[in-house]
């Protein structure tokens, strides 16, 4: 609790005790009959002023400033009105109840604000700089590019940099929501916000604090609440009309029945006062931004950065999702996926191919060497000859090895078995005899299939993949992952056209999202309703171009984001319907004289509290 809240709590307790004591006090005693009323008013004014003086004072001050319709005004009018018609203890009790509600409300909002800020708390407090053999803590903003900072085990890396010495495992969970630690060695790039879990690291700073990943993420999340969702704008507008309308209605309620129907003034004024108490739009006005903020906070905990409430809202209405293939659904790294030996062991085939290609730096050769995994013994290799556009010829362990594409086999007149598996195929011949083929392909990400399934389950109707790759490759990946549509052999410009085409076929509130790695798809990211960039740790381009940024490169995070968005929107709708429903109900009860002031205060404060509690549910979103 803050100081202010503690003070309010003390006031509440004291005035509650006073109210109880005065209500139980025998009335007849020493006071003569005709002074009874004044005595009652006098003693009740003590707890009333104690608990309500700030509300009344604010109301007066606001009227002086020309602002009439706020909750302070409504509460003051209602309680003073109750006093005037002789309901002293009720007047005090209503004010007391109102303050209890306000206190609880500010406590709940503070708590959830705190827990959201904690989720996003990746700001480093200091950086260690080595000086005269000792360490000195400085503000991260003072560190310059090229400085060496020291990060001890358990500390957070304050600025982006490169490891100068030391090895360690980094906990990136604050940025990615991912719990698997990342290994770093001298020369590795490290980004701020990660926690050093084991060894001592010396890091050469490559970016100043303002440019570092942490500062960028914080900036992004903090500014997210300034991009407001339609629901938020609706509520602000709504509140602008709602209060004056209710106040006018209350005025009519107080004046018309007594004037024209000759009914009792006291009763109708009382009903009008209740009307005023119920009318306050606080529940909506507080709980809706709180829900969105909670959604954005919960998402950032999972490594999903949402740039504004409006994008969260759009994500909940997403029906079509378009993926880029390479780097998004696939790893974008070429790997040996299959070996098809003919008349020798798999290991032998791989060994011949790797050794024959050992002098080349071509990505295909690199992946062969990586798959082989052992040291290349230069003495085993001789007479290497590159045949441009075809492959290589080399002597390995005294055997002549040919490794290359189909054209190489044809050119050398070697009878071969054609391999129709998608991907790049390397054909190998040893001593002019076909030895088999090796398939090298871009691997599909482990969670890609599950991600598509989860999106379908979450209610996304159409999943599309765009790729510049060959048709066979693209179609195979698409069918493996269970995508609905695939467009292949596209040039970068074609991707925008395809997205335009898909957008044409959408109707109403349906939204289209495009997912890419942010490197050369900025135009598509900005053209789609929602641009999602993934694998953005440290990539400025992606953070800049996208509306939603996934900190790691797992496509399954998109389904998590959709779930969070849906949950947020569901809670927002629940709150709107609940708050307006309860208020409308009590307004009717009040107008017909069924409700008492107690119920009126519940309809105001109680509803706010329930709506706030409902909003805080978003923070408990499952991974």
């Amino acid at each position, binding site marked *: 609790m803050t100081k*202010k809240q503690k003070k309010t709590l003390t006031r509440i307790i004291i005035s509650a005790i006073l109210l109880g004591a005065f209500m139980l006090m025998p009335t007849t005693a020493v006071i003569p009959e005709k002074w009874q009323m004044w005595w009652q008013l006098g003693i009740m004014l003590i707890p009333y002023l104690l608990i309500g003086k700030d509300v009344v004072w*604010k109301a007066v*001050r606001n009227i002086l*400033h020309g*602002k009439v319709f*706020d*909750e302070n005004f409504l509460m003051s009018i209602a309680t003073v009105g109750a006093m005037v018609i002789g309901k002293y203890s009720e007047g005090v009790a209503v004010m007391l109840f109102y303050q209890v509600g306000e206190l609880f409300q*500010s406590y709940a909002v503070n708590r959830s*604000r705190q827990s*959201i*800020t904690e989720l996003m708390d990746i700001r480093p407090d200091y950086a260690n700089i080595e000086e005269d053999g000792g360490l000195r803590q400085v503000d991260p903003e003072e560190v310059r590019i090229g400085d060496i900072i020291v990060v001890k085990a358990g500390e957070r890396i304050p600025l982006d940099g490169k490891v100068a010495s030391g090895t360690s495992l980094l906990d990136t969970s604050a940025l990615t929501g991912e719990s698997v630690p990342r290994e770093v060695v001298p020369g590795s790039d490290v980004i701020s916000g990660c926690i050093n879990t084991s060894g001592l690291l010396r890091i050469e700073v490559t970016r100043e604090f303002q440019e570092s990943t942490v500062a960028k993420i914080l900036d992004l999340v*903090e*500014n997210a*609440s*300034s991009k407001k969702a339609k629901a938020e704008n609706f509520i*602000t507008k709504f*509140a602008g009309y709602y209060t004056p309308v209710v106040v006018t209605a209350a005025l009519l309620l107080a004046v018309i029945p007594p004037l024209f129907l000759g009914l009792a003034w006291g009763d109708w004024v009382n009903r009008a006062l209740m009307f005023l108490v119920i009318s306050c*739009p*606080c529940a909506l*006005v*507080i709980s809706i*931004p*709180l829900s969105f*903020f909670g959604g954005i906070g919960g998402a950032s905990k999972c490594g999903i950065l949402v740039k504004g409430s409006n994008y969260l809202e759009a994500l909940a209405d997403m029906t079509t999702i378009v993926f880029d293939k390479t780097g998004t659904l696939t790893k974008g790294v070429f790997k040996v996926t299959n070996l098809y030996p003919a008349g020798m062991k798999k290991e032998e085939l791989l060994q011949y191919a790797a050794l024959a290609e050992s002098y080349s730096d071509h990505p295909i050769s690199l992946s062969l060497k990586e798959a082989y995994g052992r040291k290349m013994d230069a003495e085993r290799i001789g007479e290497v000859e590159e045949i441009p556009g075809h492959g290589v010829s080399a002597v390995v362990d005294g055997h002549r090895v040919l490794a290359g594409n189909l054209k190489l086999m044809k050119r050398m007149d070697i009878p071969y078995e054609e391999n129709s598996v998608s991907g790049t195929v390397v054909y190998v011949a040893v001593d002019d005899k076909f030895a088999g083929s090796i398939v090298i392909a871009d691997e599909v990400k482990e969670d890609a299939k599950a991600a598509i399934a989860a999106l379908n389950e979450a209610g996304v109707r159409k999943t599309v993949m765009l790729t510049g790759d060959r048709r066979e490759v693209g179609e195979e990946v698409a069918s493996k992952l269970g995508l609905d549509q695939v467009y292949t052999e596209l040039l970068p410009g074609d991707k925008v056209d395809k997205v335009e085409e898909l957008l044409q076929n959408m109707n109403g509130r349906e939204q289209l999202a495009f997912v890419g790695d942010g490197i050369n798809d900025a135009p598509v990211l900005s053209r789609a309703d929602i641009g999602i960039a993934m694998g953005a740790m440290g990539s400025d381009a992606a953070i800049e171009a996208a509306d939603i940024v996934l900190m790691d490169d797992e496509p399954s995070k998109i389904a998590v984001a959709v779930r969070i968005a849906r949950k947020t929107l569901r809670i927002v709708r629940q709150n709107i319907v609940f708050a307006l429903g309860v208020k409308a109900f009590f307004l009717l009860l009040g107008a017909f004289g069924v409700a008492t002031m107690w119920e009126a205060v519940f309809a105001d404060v109680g509803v706010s509290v329930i709506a706030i509690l409902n909003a805080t549910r978003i923070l408990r979103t499952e991974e």
Partner: protein
Amino acid sequence: MMKRYQLKDLDCANCEAKMENAINKISGVNKATVSFMTQKLVIDAEEGHFQEIMKEVVRVCKKVEPDCTIQM
């Protein structure tokens, strides 16, 4: 010039919108956003008159929400 200020005791969400509107009406202010959740004011205003503009911002905020203070 963009600047960010921390707000103290901004207690009511409705005041957020009122403050935002009032600040945006001040001449020289390009764009201002007030966030009830983060308790922050982000203001983009003309560089040359920034001091005077901020004085006006403080005055306007006092009028809308007397309890709320802008921490300079």
